[in-house]
C-alpha cells in the first residue's frame, strides 16, 4: 500500500484513488504475468481503459486526467495491493496494443542510439558545437556584466528586486544554451530572500559564478577532468550512449536515498547509491517533462548487483546504471557514518579538488537531534553541532524517533547546512516523505 501511495503525484490523487480502489467501480479487470488492466466506470459513457506494467509501473489510461499515474491506475494498483482477487487472464486487445506500442518505441530508441554517426553527421555536429560555443560565450559575457552590476549596486539592493530580476537572467542563460548556469542563478534568487546569513550565502554563490566564468575562459589550461567538470557545470551534457560504451564499476549497490524535485518544468528523480565493495557513492538522475512518467525508483534499502558507469566529474558522482544484474537482499542500515569534523575535512578536500562543489552526499552519525526556535540541529558525540536547512519540516519526527538516542543520517552537506534524505535508527531505515502537505517518516519495510 505504501509503495503505491508513493507513486502518486499528489495527495489529492491518493484520496481519489482510494475512491476507485474497489471492485464495484470496475466493469472488468485482470492481470497477466507482469501486466495489470481494467475498465473503470467513470462519469463518461465509456469506461476508462487502464493498463499498468508491473515491472516498471508504467501506465496508461484513456481518461483525460493530466496526472500521472491518474487515479484510475493508482486505484487499480491499490485494489491489487489490498489483496482483492484479480483474475489471471490473457490481456485484452487494448492492453496488447499498448504493450506492442511500447516495445516499438523502445526498439526505435535503441536503434537511434546504436546507429553510427556518419561523416555528414560529424560535420553538421561540429558546426552545431561551434554555434553553441558562440552562444555560451555571449551568455557568459551577459552574466559577467550582470554580476558586476549586482556587486556595484550592493547585495542589499537585491532583496527588493522582483522575481523577474533573477528569472530573466536565468532565461537568457537558457537561451545561451548554458542551463547549468541558469540553474545556479535561479537558486540564488531563493538565497536573496532567505533568512539568516543571506549575504554570506548570496555572495558565495555570486563569487563562484565569477570563478566559473573565469575557469571556462581558461578551460584549455585546466586538467582534463576538471575541464570536463566545468563544461558540465555550464550545461554541456555528456551523451549517455557514449558513456554506456565504457566499462563500468560492478558492485553491490545499496540504495541510500531517494528524492523527487521540480526544476522549472522538469521533474527530477535523484537516487543515491553506495557501493558495498568500492565504498563509492553514486547519484542516478532521471528526468521527466510535464506529465511524462518517471520509472519507479529503486527502493531505499534495496541492494542490486549492477554495473554503473560514472559521468566525468571531479570527483565523479553522477552515474548511469549500465546493467542491472540481480537483486540482493535488502539492507536496513546505512554504510559507515562520519562525525562532523570528518564531514568538514572531507568537504574541504573536495573543494580543494573542485572549488565548484555545491553539496555532497554523506552519512553523518551517530548524532543526536535537538530543536531550537524551530530549527533542527545534529550534534555528534564530540558536541559539534550543525544545522539542518530552515525549511526542513521533519525535525520533530526525527526527535521523536530518536527519543534522545543516536541516529545516523544520510543527506547532503553544503558546508553550512545538512539536508537529510534518510535516517537509520536501531537497525531500521526511514525516508523523509510526505502525504500531501504532511511531513512523515516512511519506515522501510
Amino acid at each position, binding site marked *: 500500500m505504501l509503495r503505491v501511495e508513493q507513486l502518486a503525484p499528489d495527495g489529492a490523487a491518493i484520496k481519489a484513488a482510494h475512491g476507485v480502489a474497489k471492485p464495484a467501480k470496475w466493469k472488468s479487470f485482470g492481470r497477466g504475468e507482469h501486466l495489470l488492466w481494467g475498465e473503470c466506470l467513470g462519469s463518461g459513457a465509456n469506461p476508462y481503459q487502464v493498463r499498468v506494467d508491473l515491472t516498471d509501473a508504467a501506465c496508461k489510461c484513456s481518461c483525460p486526467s493530466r496526472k500521472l499515474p491518474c487515479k484510475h491506475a493508482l486505484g487499480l494498483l491499490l485494489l491489487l495491493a489490498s489483496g482483492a482477487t484479480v483474475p489471471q487472464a490473457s490481456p485484452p486487445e487494448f492492453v496488447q496494443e499498448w504493450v506492442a506500442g511500447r516495445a516499438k518505441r523502445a526498439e526505435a530508441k535503441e536503434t537511434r542510439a546504436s546507429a553510427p554517426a556518419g561523416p555528414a553527421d560529424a560535420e553538421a555536429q561540429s558546426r552545431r558545437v561551434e554555434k553553441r560555443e558562440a552562444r555560451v560565450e555571449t551568455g557568459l559575457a551577459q552574466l559577467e556584466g550582470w554580476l558586476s552590476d549586482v556587486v556595484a*549596486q550592493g547585495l542589499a539592493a537585491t532583496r527588493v528586486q522582483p522575481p523577474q530580476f533573477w528569472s530573466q537572467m536565468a532565461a537568457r542563460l537558457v537561451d545561451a544554451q548554458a542551463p547549468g548556469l541558469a540553474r545556479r542563478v535561479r537558486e540564488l534568487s531563493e538565497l536573496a530572500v532567505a533568512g539568516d546569513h543571506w549575504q554570506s550565502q548570496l*555572495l558565495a554563490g555570486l563569487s563562484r559564478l565569477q*570563478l566559473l566564468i573565469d575557469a571556462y575562459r581558461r578551460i584549455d589550461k585546466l586538467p582534463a577532468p576538471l575541464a570536463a567538470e566545468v563544461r558540465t557545470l555550464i550545461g554541456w551534457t555528456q551523451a549517455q550512449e557514449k558513456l554506456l560504451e565504457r566499462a563500468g564499476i560492478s558492485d553491490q549497490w545499496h540504495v541510500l536515498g531517494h528524492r523527487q524535485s521540480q526544476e522549472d518544468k522538469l521533474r527530477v528523480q535523484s537516487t543515491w547509491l553506495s557501493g558495498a565493495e568500492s565504498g563509492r557513492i553514486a547519484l542516478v538522475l532521471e528526468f521527466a517533462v510535464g506529465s511524462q512518467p518517471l520509472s519507479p525508483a529503486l527502493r531505499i534499502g534495496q541492494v542490486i548487483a549492477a554495473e554503473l558507469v560514472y559521468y566525468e566529474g571531479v570527483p565523479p558522482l553522477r552515474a548511469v546504471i549500465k546493467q542491472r544484474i540481480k537483486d540482493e537482499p535488502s539492507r536496513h542500515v546505512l554504510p559507515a557514518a562520519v562525525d562532523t569534523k570528518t564531514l568538514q575535512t572531507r*568537504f574541504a578536500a573536495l573543494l580543494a579538488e573542485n572549488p565548484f562543489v555545491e553539496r555532497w552526499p554523506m552519512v553523518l552519525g551517530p548524532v543526536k537531534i535537538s*530543536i531550537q526556535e524551530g530549527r533542527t540541529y545534529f550534534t555528534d558525540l564530540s558536541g559539534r553541532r550543525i544545522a539542518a536547512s530552515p525549511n526542513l519540516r521533519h525535525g520533530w*519526527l526525527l526527535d521523536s524517533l530518536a*527519543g534522545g538516542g543516536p541516529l545516523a543520517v544520510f543527506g547532503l552537506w553544503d558546508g553550512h547546512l545538512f539536508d537529510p534524505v534518510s535516517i537509520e535508527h536501531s537497525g531500521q531505515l526511514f525516508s523523509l516523505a510526505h502525504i*500531501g502537505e504532511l511531513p512523515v517518516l516512511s519506515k522501510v519495510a
Partner: protein
Amino acid sequence: MSATDAAHRWNSIISLATLGTNRAQSAPDWPSEDLPLPAGTTERTLLRAAAVSYLRQISGTRIAPVAIAPEEPAPTVEGKLVSENAAWRLARMLNGEHRNLVPEWFALAARGGWVLPPHWLPVVLDRLQVGERVSATPVLGQRAVWLANRNPEWKVSGDAHQPSEERWVNGTLAERRLELAAMRAIDPAAARTWLQGTWQTDPPDARAAFLETILQAPGLSDLDEPFLESALDDKRKDVRTAAVECLCRLPSSALARRNLERLDPLVTLDAQSGGLLGKLKKRRLTIRLPDTLDKASVRDGVSAKPPAQHKIGERAYWLMQMVSMASPAHWCERFNCDIETFLDAALATDYATDLLLALCEAARRHRNAQWIKALCNRLLLGPDEVESQDIARRILPTMIVAAPTESRDAILGQLLGAARAHQIDLLQPALIAGEVGWSADTTQRAFKLLEELAMEETHSGAVVRITFADWGSRADVPTAAVAMNRLLSRCSDQSPWRNALEKLNASIEFRTAIRQELLT
C-alpha cells in the same frame, strides 16, 4: 593565515558587497600573497576575492564543540506498536480524509492496547484537537509525554482545567464563565460562594450569563436554592428567567412546589373504574384554564402574553407554561397511572398539541428518558398532517439531544422500529442529532427502512439523499457492511440513490478497514 583571520576577511568582503562598490569608499583587499591579482574592474576583483575568501573560510574553519547538557532520554516504547499501514491511515485521516472518524480510531486503538510508533507522534500531536487529546493519551504512550516536555505546544492538558480565583475575579466574561464552570465541576459550593461574592457588583449581562453556566455545568442541587430564589427578584428579566430555569429543575424547590399548587387543581384525571369493563375504559383528563395570573405566578416565570407567532389563547398559554415546568414524573405519581395512560388522556383533550409540546419541554428540562421515549413515539405516530409532521421533524432532534446519552440509541431504535419507510426523512435530523454510535439492532432497522425507501424509485419527494452519508460514522460497522452489500447489489446504476449509497458505503468500508488494521 589563522581561521580567525579568514573569518574576519570574509566578513569585511561581505560588508563591502552588501553596501555595493558604487558607494563603498575602499577597494577589496586581495586575500592572497600566493595568487597573482588578476586584472579587472573593482567589481570583478571583489567577486574573485570573495570566491577565494569563501573557499578558504569554508575549508579552513571547523565547528567548535560545545558542552551538551545531559538530556533525559525518552522511556523505551512499551506495548504493541500500531502497524505502519494503520498509522498511514491515521495520518491520512488527520490530513482531512474522513477526519470525523479520528476519535473512533483512537477509541479502537486504545481498546486494543495499541501504541503509536514514535516517528508518527509529531504528525498526530500537531493535528489533534484539544477535545480529542484525552482519549488519545493511552495510544500516544509515554514518548508523547517526553516530547511534550521538549515542545510546550504539545503539553498534555489532559487533566481537568484547574480553576483559578484570580482569573475568576479579573478575567473577561468568557474567561470568568470558564473558571466558574471548572470550579462548579470540582466544588459546587465553592463556586456558589465565588458567584455570591461578586454578584452585587456584576453587571446584569454577566449575572444572566453566570446563571446560564450554573444551569449547564454539573452540580446543580437543592443547596443552590436560597441563592437562586433571591435571583427571582433581580431587576433584569434575563436573570430572572435563568433563575426559573434552574429552580424548576429542582423538584423539591419552593418554586416547583408553588407551581404544582397552582397547576394541580386545574388538571384532573378520572379515577380508574372498578371491574373488568372499567379497566378497558379510557380515563379522561379534564383541563381547567386559570382565570387570572397573579403576581406570584409571574415571579415564578409564567409570562402573561404568548409570543406573537404562537397561536394560543392567553389562559391556555399560562397553563402550558406551568405544565412545561413541572416534572413529568409528577403526573404518574399523582394519578397512579403509567405514562401511556396519561398521554392517551392528554391527547384526547382539546389541547392535545399544546399539551404534547408542553410535556416535551418538561421532559427535556428534566431529562427524563422514559418520558422522552414515550413522547418521541407520539410525535412520530402523530396524525399524518403536514403540521404535526413539521412539529415532529423540529422537536425530535431536540428530544434526542436532551435524553441521557446512554438512552439515546434505545430511543432511536424504537423510533426506527415504529417508522414507515417514507418517514425516514422525518427521522433523519433526529438520527444525526444524537452524537452516539448505533447498536447492531438500531443499525439493522435503519438500513431496512433505507432499503425500502431506495427501492421505491418513484418516491423522490424532498428526501435529501446525500445526508444519509452521515449514517456512515454512526452505524454499527459489521451490520452496516452486510446491509450495504445487499443494498448496493439491488440498487441500479441509474438510481438517483446510487451516489448517496456509494458515499455511505465508502465510510463504512473505511471504518471496516480501520478495524482490520487494529485487530488484536
